[in-house]
């Protein structure tokens, strides 16, 4: 398994380059992953998405669908795509320290 030094610690990554263990995640790790994804600074709205994704993942074992994300996190679809222009599903999950979402929607 590949490891990468993120925020001063060698962390294991899965085959997609996401954290292999979501418990390795902290806010500093998120900021550094954000920079890797082309987001120099995470705003309050980025954090709203990230925290919502993590809370759903901890309860249900998978990241929420985009539809649910926009309905329940308070960030609408247009804003979501502006926050994560390279694709909200994959990018936001990676920054949130979660595996790539399994769902299609």
């Amino acid at each position, binding site marked *: 398994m590949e490891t990468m030094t993120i925020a001063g610690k060698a962390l294991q990554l899965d*085959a*997609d*380059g996401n954290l292999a263990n979501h418990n390795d995640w902290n806010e500093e790790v998120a900021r550094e992953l954000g920079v890797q994804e082309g987001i120099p600074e995470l705003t309050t709205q980025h954090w709203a998405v990230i925290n919502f994704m993590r809370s759903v993942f901890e309860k249900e074992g998978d990241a929420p*669908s*985009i*539809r*649910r994300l*926009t309905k329940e996190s308070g960030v*609408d*679809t*247009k804003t*979501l*795509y502006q926050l994560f*222009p*390279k*694709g*909200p*599903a*994959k*990018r936001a999950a990676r920054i949130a320290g979660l595996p790539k979402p399994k*769902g*299609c*929607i």
Partner: protein
Amino acid sequence: MTNNGAQPIEKVSIIISRGSLEGVYPGLIMANGARMEGIEASIFFTFFGLDAIIKKRMNNLKVATVGNPAMHMPTLLGALPGMSAFATLMMKKEIEKIDIPPVGEFLTMIHDAGGEIFGCRASVDMFHLKPTDFCEEVDGIISVGQFYEKAAGGQIIFT
């Protein structure tokens, strides 16, 4: 990434040519899925596919219960009054269960995600449709030539 070093897809142009529920949803799911991955996406609705962007019809699309062997229903049974409505109701329930929105909401979602939505000029003329018949997400009624221009540099998917 397990794409064996192949060039990732950056852009898709999806054609939806059928107006049944099962004819429309796959294209919508493919377009939305593309946007979720950061892939540029547009949808071109042609022939009966136009029903999916006509305000009065978009949320009343039906599942075809006749001429659809994968329904596993004898043709004569599928032709009974109310059978298509029943099959449609059942499928809509299952669609909602897996968090796929109704057609109208799905189009808004794709459009808000940056996906472009076009109607086919020839089909609009053939069915004598007016601009006011279409939902507000429609970015334009375009010719086949314009469609190809817009699709340049990407993949075309016909459904």
